[in-house]
């Protein structure tokens, strides 16, 4: 059974790598955007789903990563340096954001992270000398790594997908290590976790810092994908979309962010056939899903099994 699971995973990965080769530019663009949001969602899923810390700040980390990539790439820095820089900058800031989580929980923590997102938004908008302010930064170049140019949409998709596989692999390894069990213990019962010797302070900070680093890497792909950054996509509204992505996909489930990113990024595009009604239909679908499947779409098999039993 375990062997079959690996074969299925490999088959899906190969299909996801090659299938977009048949797509036109639009399909490639939104599929790449889906991959970018998936990476950001993997990080937020660690913070929210596995470690049980609420965060409304992932949009800010996407923005920090995007602006890091925009500023550095326009200065001629290689993307080989940009990806780790974006991750490290976000890791460090995420570590700082983790400190409020040591004092407050639940909706109080949500407001603390929301305030952080607003601060980042104001910084991006007001520090025009660095960020271009409300005008943003345009003509961000696509990556060139080891003389391989990722300028064509399909090549850039392949690069994004490889980054996703690497980041997903690291997360899978992390979750199967003692760290993963420590995060789960922190989520399920922090007092008991502390009593069995888990350093809850350390793991709380790490949950934020690692989640933020994933947001930074996603941002470093977002900037060259859109080739323009401005503050608006990194506002609190986008952080809410990302939280929706994790919860609607299945919080604390490894592939939850993949499904969640389908809902947030791809579903509105698919619903365009409904023309003027497409966002209304999207809203109704989200409400229905939250009512019937509060555990997210990936909880559907469990729910069906529960009904049969």
């Amino acid at each position, binding site marked *: 059974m375990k062997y079959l699971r690996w074969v299925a995973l490999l088959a899906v990965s190969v299909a996801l790598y090659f299938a977009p080769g048949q797509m*036109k*530019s*639009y*399909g490639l*663009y*939104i599929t790449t*955007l889906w991959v970018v949001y998936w990476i950001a969602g993997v990080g937020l899923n660690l913070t929210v789903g596995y470690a049980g810390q609420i965060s409304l700040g992932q949009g800010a980390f996407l923005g920090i990563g995007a602006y890091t990539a925009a500023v550095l790439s326009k200065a001629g820095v290689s993307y080989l340096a940009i990806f780790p820089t974006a991750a490290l900058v976000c890791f460090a800031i995420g570590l700082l954001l983790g400190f409020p989580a040591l004092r407050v929980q639940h909706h109080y923590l949500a407001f603390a992270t929301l305030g952080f997102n607003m601060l980042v938004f104001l910084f991006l*908008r007001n520090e025009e000398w660095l960020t271009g*302010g*409300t*005008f*943003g930064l*345009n*003509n961000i170049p696509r990556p060139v790594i080891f003389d391989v140019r990722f300028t064509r949409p399909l090549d850039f998709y392949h690069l994004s997908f490889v980054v996703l596989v690497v980041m997903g692999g690291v997360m899978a390894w992390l979750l199967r290590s003692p760290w993963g069990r420590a995060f789960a213990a922190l989520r399920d019962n922090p007092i008991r976790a502390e009593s069995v010797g888990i350093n809850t302070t350390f793991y709380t900070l790490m949950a934020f810092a690692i989640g933020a680093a994933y947001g930074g890497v996603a941002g470093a792909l*977002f900037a060259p*994908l*859109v*080739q*323009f950054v*401005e503050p*608006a*996509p990194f506002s609190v509204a986008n952080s809410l979309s990302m939280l929706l992505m994790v919860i609607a996909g299945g919080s604390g489930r490894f592939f939850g962010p993949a499904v969640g990113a389908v809902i947030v990024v791809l579903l*509105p*595009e698919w619903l*365009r*056939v*409904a*023309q*003027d009604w*497409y*966002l209304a239909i999207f809203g109704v679908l989200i409400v229905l899903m939250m009512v019937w499947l509060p555990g997210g779409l990936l909880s559907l098999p469990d729910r069906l099994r529960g009904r049969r039993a």
Partner: protein
Amino acid sequence: MLNRRAALTLGTALAASAALPVQAADDVLIIDNVELSGPGVTSGSQWKMGVDLAVGEINAAGGILGRKIKIQHLDNQSQAQIAKAVATKAVDEDPYVMLGPIFSGDVNVSMSVTENAEMPIFIGGEAGNLTTQGMKYLFRSSLNQASAMPKLANYLVKSGVKSLAVVWGANDFGKGGRDAMVKEMATRGIALAADISTEPGQMDFSAVVVNASKANADAIFAYMNEEECARFLIALKKLGTDKPVYGETVLVSQKVIELAGPAANGAKGHVGLSVDAPNPLVQEFGRKFEAAYKQKSDHNGIKGYTSVHLVKAVTEKLGKFDRKALAAAIHGGSFSAKTNPGLLMDVSFDEKGDLDRESYLAEVRNGQQVITETLPAVGKK
């Protein structure tokens, strides 16, 4: 008898097929990349109505060179990354031209996509930097901020204003307008008494009004989007401020007058486009728009309408559907409203895609926009 699953499948398929737009083989496709949700919805809805009105008229008269226009409106949600997705989709579907976007950030991401595809786009954005990036297929539908602000600054000097409190919306539109205005003020010796930024979507403007009043300037210049301008005017009235308020296009637009009600009375400014302009073609358009949509058109409605008519006029002059030739013909071209009534006003374009045409000074009196002076096109000076 159909079982439940088959009925559901059939129903879904029918619903999907009914929603799909039908396009005849000889229709000419135009895609509209427009803000129909999010903060740009007020501007986008007016633009869309203007476009639809023009398409309806043109199709009723036989189309362009005998081909009917098939218009496809695609909502960009007022978000740059979605606007880019829509522009990419437009390029895939290979329309004749693309209309929109209106928000300058959305234009910024879309124009490189359409430029690579050598596809002309007719934008609603007014920020000055859009036409300074060397785009060969980008055309404005209204005056550039850098062209409009000198006209307003001259009006301020004529009105005896020596100091000004500037209130602007903190987005690319507001900041671009603020920067252009402050530059023009400096060259005319008008002092900047206060420089107050406001949030897009801001609800309460009491503090803004208090700070603007405290500056003790001769007048206030307000440059924000429609809803914010209306809320600002209401707050001014509520707090009893009697300073004259000036604006550029938006402040005295029909939409702001409708939203602000009596609070809009007394606002003055420069308008590039207005259905109240002393021009029979524009006024006739205003009547048709109001009859069709039960509301007055603002400048965005006129921008959408005239963009479609410009495409028609130039294509018919060329006698063929050729994107490159269309762009080349518009650059440096002048088009007369006498021969092309849908253009509403004579218009000319420079090599950057900026347009030039007459504009107006306006004042709101008794809930109506009253044109007080017609200013000639800059090129006619």
